[in-house]
């Protein structure tokens, strides 16, 4: 059996996902509601971690955004993201995690397009907003639905 990191968080989050999925018929709506949840808790995450102290007061370049991603991963997951890609998509930063915490040992079938870890999109969006960066974040790929890695697309609106 795979070793689960932070089983309490995982269990709590799966309860949330269950509740959302049982109250909507639309994948897109479920994704949005998970993002909303992330945005809701984003301020608490920002206020209870070292993110504010470890980052520049203003984030103004894509490099700054990449560094911010490193700090967020370090603060929340005590690791670096597997990859932060600033090149392949114009106007976006792609963040990849091959050992994503949120969807450990989750295997979904027939749920194409569902981002199990969309909560993290919301958290990223909120933190970027507190750093003065407007963005739209969504999960492009998710291990829970069969992808190799979890990837979030951070679309920056400068």
């Amino acid at each position, binding site marked *: 059996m795979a070793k689960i990191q932070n089983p309490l968080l995982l269990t709590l989050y799966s309860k949330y996902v269950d509740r959302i999925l049982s109250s909507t018929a639309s994948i897109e709506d479920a994704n949005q509601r998970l993002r909303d949840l992330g945005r809701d808790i984003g*301020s608490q995450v920002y206020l209870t971690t070292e993110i*504010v102290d470890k980052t520049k007061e203003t984030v103004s370049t894509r490099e700054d955004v990449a560094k911010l991603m490193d700090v967020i991963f370090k603060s929340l997951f005590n690791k670096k993201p597997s990859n932060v890609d600033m090149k392949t998509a114009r106007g976006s930063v792609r963040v990849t995690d091959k050992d994503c915490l949120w969807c450990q040992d989750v295997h979904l079938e027939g749920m194409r397009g569902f981002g199990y870890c969309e909560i993290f999109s919301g958290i990223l969006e909120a933190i970027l907003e507190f750093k003065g960066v407007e963005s739209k974040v969504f999960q492009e790929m998710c291990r829970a639905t069969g992808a190799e890695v979890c990837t979030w697309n951070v679309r920056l609106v400068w």
Partner: protein
Amino acid sequence: MTTDLERALSKLRFDDQVLGYSLMTKDGRPFVSFSFPDELFPRVRDSISLYKSDLRLMTIDTEKGLVVLSPVDTNWILTVLYVPELQLGLAIAKTKNVLRLLEGIELPPPPDEFEESVEGNLQVLETIAINAASTSPVPSSNGQPVDVPVTAAASPAVTAASAPIIERSPEDFAVQPSTIPKRGETYTTALTLDSDLHKEMKKNHRNFGFDVLMLVDGKLTVERIADSMFQSNERVAELLMWAASKGIVNVPLETGTVKKKEATLGRFVKCPKYEGPPAKVKPEHKRIINACDGTQTTDAIAELLGVTHAKVIQTVALYRKHGLKMIGRTV
């Protein structure tokens, strides 16, 4: 006026942790005292004269116990002697509770001549107040003191429990942390020591009932009352629901079963409170940080000041290292 003053002071008298108290003039002369040791007066007087008009809240650790001094207004100082083992914070909180009760009372200045530490001086104070006319809330036509100012204060209260004929049970009332209880028709009776109602309250709730009722002034919310007594909202709400069923206080009635299902602890929120040095606050952050008093959420602060929520979070986050805390509470 004096009845309210007496009521406020009786809170101290019935407190087991209070050894004595004295209402003193700003010169340090004891006007009305109760069990306050005479030998402590010179020391208290010295402390008062040392600080003069700058006196705020002050504590003196004496061999008899802990003395807390606090100005009531420009003329009067309340001095309370607590048992030595009482924690400093609790002693200060208890004193502040009494001060809060005294807030609404306009005390006249002391007479030029008076005998020190006499309990009858309260009546002297009352006479001065009535002569001054404007300070007495309900002077009767013949100039005599009106005996029941509390009833007068209670009369405009909520009508929810104003039908004593209908027997109601505590469950018929809805008390939330944000509810403001008001004094009811039997409020005075409940505080009268030899009344059956007081005995019933004492039997069921001991001194807790008395303590809660003393703080019911039509202004404080259940949450504020619970906070100042270091008690849970639920315990205070439970007592108030019982008191409402007896007409002692007025609180809203429960409205139907649907509402009953929704009766919860309230919404759990976190409110920022800045307890760090004011000098650390940058001028551009002052408006937001000043609003961080532990009673308002970041959303409420943003709305109050007309700034974005993100701006409030950004600012609040910067001051965590300087002593900003997030206080969890139910609203």
